[in-house]
């Protein structure tokens, strides 16, 4: 198979100079770690880490019917999203299959910016544009307009404040903020369970802002730590924990689906919500040794009852953790299961979300 050239973010040279291990990820060459996954994970849980997430895409939706278009596409109630607000939703097919999970920011009355997963960006864009023809709204690809940095951790806001004015927007809000030489769109969102912000800036300013954040005390963190952090707090990873074959009800994302808004897929979801689903996604911990991995079978009384979709070693809990789709009757906290880790049965127990609670640490 021919290998397509990998895309690089504006921070590629900065990562290489910092000694990052760079790996292919969703068509991009991205830092998986710098000093080590555990150190970077701990830095985010105890201080401040900064991630280059410029591989994520952006779609701009504008025009008089921008809100109506997004209400049709996105699972959440977009009319509840105020200017300066942020909202999480999923994008569904008519049968409820999940095309992507997204954060949307309302920048103005008639303008929204939606952040996509790198692997889904082109498909999302085509989906948005195909449906936009029925609305007085314009959909444009904004991927090349932004570099994106996620600054996360209990000290993240203090670190960003050192170079920001005016002050940072609160959680689930967004504002244009001066960051030294450039203005950035700062959003009170993240993917680690910690407080912090995500910053969108023009690509040409990314190296400067990155450098200022490092100088202010942020620890560079890679995709390895991003994955262990999100799994400890049970945030979904598209492609692992959900895809087109799963609907948001079985994925445990019913909370961001408002079927009364008549979005694409809402009828299928209403039925799934009413009837229940055969399987459900649930988090689990290994109660003994071992590390579960994606694809490991879940066993109950010796029979396969599901499959692990994400698994790792939790640096904070110091045990194997994961999420799995399994028979709905088993997906209750406290249920004892077994994970078949490459032929060896490992004792595990279903837990409630999150597996690790930053607020209790």
């Amino acid at each position, binding site marked *: 198979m021919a290998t397509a050239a990998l895309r690089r973010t504006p921070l590629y040279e900065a990562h290489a100079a910092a000694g990052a*291990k760079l790996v292919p990820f969703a068509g991009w060459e991205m830092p*998986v*770690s710098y000093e*080590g*996954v*555990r150190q970077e*994970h701990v830095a985010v849980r105890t201080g401040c880490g900064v991630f280059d997430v410029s591989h994520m895409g952006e779609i701009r939706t504008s025009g008089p019917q921008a809100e109506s278009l997004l209400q049709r596409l996105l699972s959440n109630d977009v009319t509840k999203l105020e200017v300066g607000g942020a909202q999480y939703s999923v994008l569904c097919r008519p049968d409820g299959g999940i095309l992507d999970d997204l954060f949307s920011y309302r920048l103005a009355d008639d303008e929204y910016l939606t952040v996509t997963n790198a692997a889904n960006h082109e498909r999302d864009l085509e989906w948005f544009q195909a449906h936009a023809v029925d609305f007085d709204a314009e959909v444009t690809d904004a991927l090349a307009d932004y570099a994106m940095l996620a600054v996360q951790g209990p000290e993240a806001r203090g670190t960003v404040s050192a170079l920001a004015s005016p002050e940072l927007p609160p959680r689930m809000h967004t504002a244009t903020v001066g960051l030294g030489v450039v203005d950035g769109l700062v959003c009170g969102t993240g993917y680690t369970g910690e407080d912090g912000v995500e910053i969108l800036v023009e690509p040409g300013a990314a190296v400067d802002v990155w450098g200022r954040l490092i100088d202010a005390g942020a620890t560079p963190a890679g995709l*390895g730590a991003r*994955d*262990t952090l999100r799994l400890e707090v049970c945030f979904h990873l598209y492609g692992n924990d959900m895809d087109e074959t799963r609907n948001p009800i079985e994925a445990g994302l019913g909370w961001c689906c408002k079927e009364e808004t008549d979005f694409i897929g809402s009828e299928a979801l209403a039925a799934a919500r009413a009837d229940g689903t055969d399987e459900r996604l649930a988090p689990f911990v290994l109660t003994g*040794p*071992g*590390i579960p*991995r994606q694809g490991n079978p879940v066993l109950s009384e010796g029979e396969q009852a599901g499959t692990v979709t994400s698994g*790792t*070693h939790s*640096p904070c809990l110091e045990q*194997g953790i994961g999420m799995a789709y399994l028979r709905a009757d088993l997906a209750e906290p406290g249920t004892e299961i077994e994970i078949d880790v*490459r032929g060896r049965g490992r004792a595990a127990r279903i837990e409630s979300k999150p597996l690790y609670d930053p607020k209790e640490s």
Partner: protein
Amino acid sequence: MAEETYPEELKYHPEHDWARIEGEEATFGITWYAQDALGEVVFYEPPEVGAAVTKDQPYAEVESVKAVSDVYSPLSGEITAVNETLSDSPETINEDPYGDGWLVKVKLSDPSEADQLLDAAAYRELLSSG
């Protein structure tokens, strides 16, 4: 983290394992390159003492947060001792891959197999050509 080294007195397997051969006995471990590629080892379960190992076949696994890596046996024989301390502190494999991070000791069934292993210079060449 240890500095990159490939001691001259060891023999190397192309799957990034080393053997310290002393007559009909040998100690096995993974090379600096292997532990660096894997990242911090967070889980290692020693195999059973008495288990047979076969040259070029996996006999254990080392795991980092991100990945699982098979450990290949550079030579054939029977395991006579395992490094129990690694269960509690697997990161020793990163810190001292040729010393305290050893994995198993083996009674060799065919010491002449060692002729097929690489010396340090040949292993370094393999790494630089990779």
